[in-house]
């Protein structure tokens, strides 16, 4: 941020100088002219004041040597060695960007007895897998995982670090970014890299119908998280000389003030991320009982019901069935949105679906901006009709 510097020797008439500023930002403090917080950097004082008395100076900016930071790293999210799908998607994006700058692609994996998993990552076009294999890392505890991550960053100095937007990733990435004091952009929907290695990060912002283009120009590494199913899974690729690097760390850095008492699998609920057909319901539904027609339609199409935020908040639908930035990202073959206006948060969670059919009464609803099929109508009239027609066509087929 620039600021105004005052050359006191060039000021002879203090009274006139004070009147220069239309915002009253020039004042006298301890007998000296000074500038207070009302300054808008309008530069009137520079133009109209005594020559050389006021000067605009760029504050000394933090400078980093970007060339010292090379390569793109992906955090390999896994549970007991089973690699989470988001990891492959991020490796795919890392490969794409690394090509532009002739960078290497790295994966960081930490856990206990993870040799096989570390090896398996080599089949996805990674140049080096950095593995921290310690029994203390068997379960996710924030401090040792953070220490390992910071150790990796200090040793390898990657320019970009990508972390999957799982609950683990969304807890770990910010902790690491803050420890290193660098920037982190959450839930990016688009990523690209400039020739000077600045990462272009695009995400919905300000809780509104707006996208923000974000950069981290003076800090390295540049951290970004991306949700599962935002990027496609890449082709497998085995690079020559690709290798697993076993890393060591002081065991004292693996200590924690957290004790894991129990790890239970969550009651098996449907993962809407895996559904091929989704009927998404929203505020267009006036009563909880009315959701029955959405359930029926979903069943007829072999799909599942999911929802936007309002119905989750009203408690009508279970929170793990929420689509959107605060819920899940889905990419089914077909999604039919019923009575959803389509906030940017919701749309970011489903805009990559193969086919989007949107049903809404309001023809100006934002959901129609991304729909392949925009159907203007009332869900209360349309869905029962559709159910009836599907049933008829099914019986006709049987006969």
């Amino acid at each position: 941020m620039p600021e105004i510097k005052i050359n006191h020797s060039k000021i002879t008439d203090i009274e006139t100088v004070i009147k220069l500023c239309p915002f009253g930002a020039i004042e006298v403090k301890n007998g000296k002219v000074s500038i207070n917080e009302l300054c808008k950097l309008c530069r009137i004082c520079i133009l109209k004041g005594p020559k050389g008395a006021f000067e605009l100076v760029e504050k000394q900016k933090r400078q980093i040597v970007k060339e010292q930071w090379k390569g793109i790293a992906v955090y390999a999210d896994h549970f007991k060695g089973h690699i989470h799908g988001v990891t492959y998607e991020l490796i795919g994006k890392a490969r794409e960007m690394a090509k532009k700058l002739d960078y290497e692609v790295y994966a960081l994996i930490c856990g206990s007895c993870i040799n096989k998993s570390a090896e398996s990552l080599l089949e996805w076009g990674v140049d080096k897998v950095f593995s921290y294999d310690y029994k203390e890392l068997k379960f996710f505890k924030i401090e040792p995982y953070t220490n390992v991550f910071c150790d990796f960053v200090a040793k390898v100095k990657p320019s970009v670090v990508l972390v999957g937007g799982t609950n683990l990733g969304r807890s770990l990435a910010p902790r690491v970014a803050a420890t290193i004091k660098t920037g982190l952009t959450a839930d990016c929907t688009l990523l690209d890299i400039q020739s000077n290695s600045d990462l272009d990060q695009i995400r919905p912002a300000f809780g509104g119908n707006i996208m923000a283009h974000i950069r981290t120009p003076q800090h390295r590494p540049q951290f970004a998280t991306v949700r599962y199913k935002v990027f496609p899974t890449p082709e497998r690729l085995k690079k020559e000389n690709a290798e697993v690097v076993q890393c060591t760390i002081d065991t004292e850095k693996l200590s924690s003030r957290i004790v894991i008492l129990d790890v239970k699998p969550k009651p098996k609920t449907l993962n809407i991320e895996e559904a091929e057909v989704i009927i998404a319901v929203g505020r267009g539904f006036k009563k909880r009982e009315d959701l029955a027609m959405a359930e029926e339609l979903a069943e007829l199409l072999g799909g599942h019901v999911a929802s936007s935020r309002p119905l989750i908040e009203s408690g009508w639908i279970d929170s793990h069935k929420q689509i959107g930035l605060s819920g899940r990202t889905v990419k089914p073959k077909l999604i039919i949105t019923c009575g959803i206006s389509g906030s940017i948060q919701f749309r970011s969670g489903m805009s990559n679906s193969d086919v989007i059919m949107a049903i809404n009464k309001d023809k100006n609803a934002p959901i129609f901006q991304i729909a392949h099929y925009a159907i203007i109508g009332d869900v209360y009239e349309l869905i029962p009709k559709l159910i009836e027609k599907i049933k008829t066509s099914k019986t006709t087929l049987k006969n």
Partner: protein
Amino acid sequence: MNIVVCIKQVPISSDVEIDPKTGTLKRDGVDSKINPYDLYAIETAMLIKEKTKARVTAITMGPPQAKEILREALMMGIDKVVILSDRKFAGADVLATSYALSQGIRKLNSADIIICGKQTTDGDTAQIGPELAAFLNIPHAAYVSCIREVKEFSITVDCDMDETIQTCRLELPALITVGIEIGQPRLPSFSLKMKTRDRNIDLFSLDDLSDKNEDNYGLNGSPTQVIKIFPPESRSEKTTWEGDAETNASRILSKLNEFKII
């Protein structure tokens, strides 16, 4: 025991628009409320308070208008409220925001448990809690779905780890982030409103914090920079169907057949 709850003021409506010509936000006259997830953070603090007689402080950072949500927090049973407000805090990204909060909490001088909502409904980043814990150098657990036990020196919680529920005991001081699973937040009470209407709201500005270096706050202290904002793209090739339900149902059916869904 002392509990600190971090809360944020968010716009009530998400109908924020962008002026395509100037590229600036049209955000005038947007009303604000407490971030809905922060209500669960307050509720969590109240549940712990009922059992342990803890003293609960709510802290927020924002313009002076953000005092409104602190008043609401008082009506829910919060004992003490603090606002971090300074022109030099403006334009802060996650790092600068959580750093300022960490400085504010250090000034409070005693926080055994810090509770944040798991995310906000405007930024949706879910980063402040973990970054704040990093600056305070205390353990944290995010996505806490249940508080099992609170003791003098520890808190035991269930964390939602997507596929599993991890039960863990954190040494105090510690930070947790909570969501909807905690249970319905209590409503603001009228009697508390009357009782707390003259309650002082403490204001911390940069001069009150121990680190007074303005390069660590606001826009100056923010590594990430928004270089452009723009409206999301709309789909160019789109089929629009108006007309009656009967016709539209037939059209949908024929597409379902075409895509081999049926």
